[in-house]
């Protein structure tokens, strides 16, 4: 994958693929197969050194947990849904869940979601266009059944 040159990603794992399209890049340990979001010197799960290899992450997953944030730091618009999604393949990723009403009744656990990349406008930000992502509801057929354990 290329590192982005025209955009400023809002996460080290947000990259552009060979076609120049945004994607998620994680790292998989060759010793224990754990998939991580970020590169590290050694695998935090098994301790193997130099074993992490870059790999593309799935852009589908299921909602593992969330909260509806009503109060954050000054200037942060609320409410928003802060979601933890378990991506197919196992990485847990945090992001905003959009496209559903911000009430618990409208946010079922394990709902299928997909990653949608976007280019947010941030007031006061000048310089490169920002690249970010949100989670949006996906069709169940797009997501495999969740693993339990």
């Amino acid at each position: 994958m290329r590192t982005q040159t025209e955009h400023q990603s809002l996460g080290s794992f947000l990259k552009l693929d060979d076609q120049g399209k945004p994607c998620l890049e994680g790292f998989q340990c060759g010793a224990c197969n754990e998939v991580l979001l970020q590169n590290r010197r050694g695998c935090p799960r098994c301790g193997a050194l130099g074993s992490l290899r870059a790999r593309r992450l799935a852009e589908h997953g299921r909602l593992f947990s969330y909260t509806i944030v009503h109060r954050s730091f000054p200037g942060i618009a609320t409410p928003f849904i802060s979601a933890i999604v378990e991506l197919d393949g196992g990485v847990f990723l945090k992001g905003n869940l959009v496209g559903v009403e911000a009430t618990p009744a409208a946010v079922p656990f394990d709902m299928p979601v997909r990653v949608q990349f976007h280019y947010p406008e941030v007031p006061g930000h000048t310089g490169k266009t920002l690249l970010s992502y949100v989670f949006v509801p996906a069709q169940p057929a797009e997501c495999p059944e969740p693993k339990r354990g």
Partner: protein
Amino acid sequence: MSDVYVVGTDMIRFGRYPDRSVEDLGAEAVLLALADAGLGIGDMQAVYCGNQLAAGDRIGQRILKQIGQTGVAVVNVSNACASGATAFREGWIAIRAGLYDLVLCVGVEQMGKGILGAPQSYAGVTTEGMLGSSTMPASFATLGMEHTRQYGTTFEQFAKVSVKNHHHSTLNEKAMYRFETPLEDVMGAEMIAYPLTKLMCSVNVDGAAAAVICSEKKARELGLLKRAVRIRASVLTSDPYTPQNLANLDFNAVTQLAARQAYETAGVGPGDLDLIELHDCFATAELLHYENLGICPAGDAGKLIDTGYTALGGALPVNVSGGLLSKGHPLGATGIANIYEISTHLRGEAGARQVQGARLGLTHVVGAGSACAIHILERVQP
């Protein structure tokens, strides 16, 4: 290796003291603890000071400048909300190692108002609110919702923790807040991060607590065993890897690990405990810690709060001090304030909130999901 005893301990009333210096708060708690032991600063062979927000500022030495610069070793300890308990443990280690007989441990914090910390950012852009939330309330709300997902635990059940702990603190003159909060008030308070309302979030306040700890030999020599409290276990863990902790704080694994070690070291089980002071930084945390500390099977935490099992008068009272939710949570002080609370009950000196016949208690703190300190304390007198 000698057993180590708490021979003096106290805390100042938690509150807001913006006009006082952090070392003055600490010094007040130290003098109270020394007086409780009947000793002076000159008797202390080392000082361990827990503080997070002024971690680089040598608060331990600044406290000594207030009350007696004796030239002893001072170690300043920071481990987020586990700072005080970590400092206490460092003192315990030094006595166990035979370096000292009498050591002073103090925890102190002075805090501002509002949400702790700063908004998460990346490459100079604020990502808080764009890539989810990393505030403490949001992190702990999300952890509570995991429990809801697995076991159906309700907003109301989480809210009952606040009702219980606010009620307890009406019996504790050292608590910051001392008023009842009926369930409808807790659930109807301003929502911060669902399911945590403002009354389900601990208050960041100022405070200090201190403990004088002693080798068995010295305690006998000084005649201090009568009101002493024996430290049966002192355990510290960091967060072991879990896949979830890529995305959120995970205080469950670090607590479970520490609890296993503490029970094994002390040779007791959760059923042997008479009371617990655990880390209820947010109401959701308390229910999860019932399970993390093994006082009920996985999934049963909601039942415990529903039945009053963990209220004063129940089978295993939890946070009768009012907990972090109501007594307050000055980060560095909490870990030693818990020691003070358990010790007070073990000495039979807790007055209106006394857990009758308390012989064995457990203290628990977690710092930012990545440091957990557990102590098991035992009454000495038959």
